[in-house]
């Protein structure tokens, strides 16, 4: 059992939870994730680790409550417990010396981005961040991004804050201007990562993405999270979740992510709720 110590609402349906998990907190590195189960009847949900505090023995998780399982998770009151937390899973990102990084994040993709920015920052990288969301209120964790970046560009679909458009717009502008970057990191919805990778590919800029496949065990045992990387099947849970964005078959990822949509909708309907 893993105690919930803090819980805040960051934006509509987006929560920040601090959970006690000392063993995971001690070992977690940038790029790692956890699998969480709310109750005895719960699903195993993969969640990225936004931050870890080895001394306090805690993990910070950012959760978008989109379906039943994530809603059950964010409904756990402070002081109560999450049934299971397993981690740190996945292959931690290899943090190499990088001069300049352009970091593109959309939606709650900012959560898994923060540990990477922290790690690269420590290595002395200069970081230009592009933070995007549908609308102003969904631009979460801005202060954290700012504290880790040399420059932050905000983008919203509706123009309610920052530039109006998609994260790929400023990305393209910066690359077209001839500015030098050593790598790009793109984390967010699969279609966003796909679009960002497509842009960076034009400029031959190495691009790291973090994939959020459907998973069960998270230890390489079930193969449910398989993704095609340069035509070769890999397991996102153990070979990833970080991959070369130019090698990922995003179309396949998107359809695989949607395989249980009917069942997810069904559960939400029976609960009288709408799936976000």
């Amino acid at each position, binding site marked *: 059992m893993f105690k919930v110590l803090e819980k805040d609402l960051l934006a509509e349906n987006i929560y920040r939870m601090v959970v006690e998990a000392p*063993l*995971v907190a001690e070992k977690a590195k940038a790029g790692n994730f956890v699998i969480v189960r709310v109750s005895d*009847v719960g699903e195993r949900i993969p969640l990225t680790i936004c931050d870890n505090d080895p001394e306090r023995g805690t993990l910070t998780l950012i959760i978008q409550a989109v379906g039943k399982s994530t809603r059950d998770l964010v409904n756990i009151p402070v002081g109560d417990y999450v049934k299971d937390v397993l981690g740190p899973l996945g292959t931690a990102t290899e943090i190499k010396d990088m001069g300049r990084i352009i970091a593109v994040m959309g939606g709650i993709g900012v959560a898994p981005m923060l540990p990477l920015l922290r790690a690269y920052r420590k290595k002395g990288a200069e970081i230009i961040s592009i933070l995007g969301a549908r609308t102003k209120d969904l631009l979460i964790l801005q202060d954290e991004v700012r504290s880790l970046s040399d420059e932050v560009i905000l983008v919203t679909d509706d123009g309610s804050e920052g530039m109006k458009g998609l994260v790929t717009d400023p990305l393209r502008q910066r690359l077209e201007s001839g500015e030098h970057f050593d790598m790009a990191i793109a984390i967010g919805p699969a279609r966003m990562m796909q679009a960002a990778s497509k842009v960076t590919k034009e400029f031959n800029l190495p691009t790291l993405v973090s994939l959020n496949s459907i998973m069960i065990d998270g230890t390489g045992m079930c193969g449910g999270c398989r993704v095609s990387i340069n035509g070769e099947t890999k397991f996102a849970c153990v070979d990833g979740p970080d991959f070369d964005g130019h090698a990922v078959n995003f179309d396949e990822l998107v359809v695989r992510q949607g395989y249980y949509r009917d069942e997810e909708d069904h559960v939400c309907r029976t609960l009288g709720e709408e799936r976000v």
Partner: protein
Amino acid sequence: MIPAKRNRVEMPRRDPKERSSDFIEVALGLDPEMAISEAERCLNCKHKPCVSGCPVQVPIPEFIQLVVQGEFEAADAKIKEKNSLPAVCGRVCPQESQCEAVCVLAKRGQPIAIGMLERFVADQASAAKKSRDEGAQATKPEKKYPERIAVIGSGPAGLTCGADLAGYGYEVDIFEALHDTGGVLRYGIPEFRLPKSIVDEEVDYVKSLGVNVFTNVAVGLTMDFNEMLRSGKYAAAFIGTGAGLPYFLNIPGENLNGVYSANEFLTRANLMKAYLFPEYDTPIKVGKRVAVVGAGNVAMDAARVSRRLGAEEVYIVYRRSREEMPARLEEIENAEEEGIKFQLLTNPARIVGDEKFRVRAMECVRMELGEPDSSGRRRPVEIPGSLFTLEVDTVVVAVGQGANPLLTTRVDGLELNKWGNIATFDEAGATSIPGVWAGGDIATGASTVISAMGAGKRAALAIHEWLTAKRDNA
């Protein structure tokens, strides 16, 4: 008529029509009268070939004689001297190729139904304890030694090793990566073949011996194996992490929606209880027509789960012939009774998807058997021009498993063999690292529950002897 001449008892099973739409156990078990009558057939022979046929040397004639006397709980205790999981073994052991194969009565084709009797006494003892409102507790062995031992994996190998080490008098910590115990007993074998309440009881029994079990700990990730030994917290370790790396066919279309590894399919159904969706949150999708590729016990389990989840047509697709099918005869018969169809001498060539990236069909070729290959079995050879299409909407790949590298690649100095399994250097499973033993599927490649238990048992004894020698030399 002397008892031995009587026919062997038959296991009463539920009607195939009724059972193939639910997950309730298929085998009904013997009643006391049937069990005693079967036990009376035992010749109680002096040389006991059955005991040497058992990977954990259960005192078979002794427990059977206790059944004859109606002493069912004593019979259970007798088995538990050697085997901590009799209710499991009575259900899933391939007795026909082990203890029963070497039974003297087998020469006449009617060996004693050792497995059925084992299951019977375990269930009787459990029921008796329950009626007295007792748990599955044992007399807690005395802690005689200061050393603490780490056991990685709570499957059959780990549970057995842990139970035996506790019995010798050690403090034992078992670490399990999943949220629940039992390994393959929990995620692999379906409820209708091995009810999970039985697994719970057997695990509770092991815990009652004083063994500590920690779930949600993936050793190698959550804890550093090297550090566990280096820090001196653990004096020795046993690695029994199982196979746990699904093989795929490496044919086009394998990442389509509707293609599952047997591991994923069975883990959803068994560990996550997806057959009870939406009461349980994990979904599983089974279409109307399912092809299960492979013909081992796992394939039979996947086929029978598909049936129970509503598939109208379920095919076992296997590239060799019936004779080479690795599944137990009993499981093949169960599957056939439940209407599973066998497409033998058939090899998948390609999985075909629809515009929504879902499985629509599987293209297969017909095979014929040629010369024997390295396994001694006749090699299946493709018949030219035999390509045909099997209309299916779900494919479950059950062609075996390799060694999961999650832990093994994170242990300093641990030698692996060319298949990625942990290299062992003696019968007890000694590895390249002093103080570390390994056993079960991670050492041998995919095998049976009971052989994993045998490995756990031998390793426990070796660990005890090694620590004893160390203490004596100190």
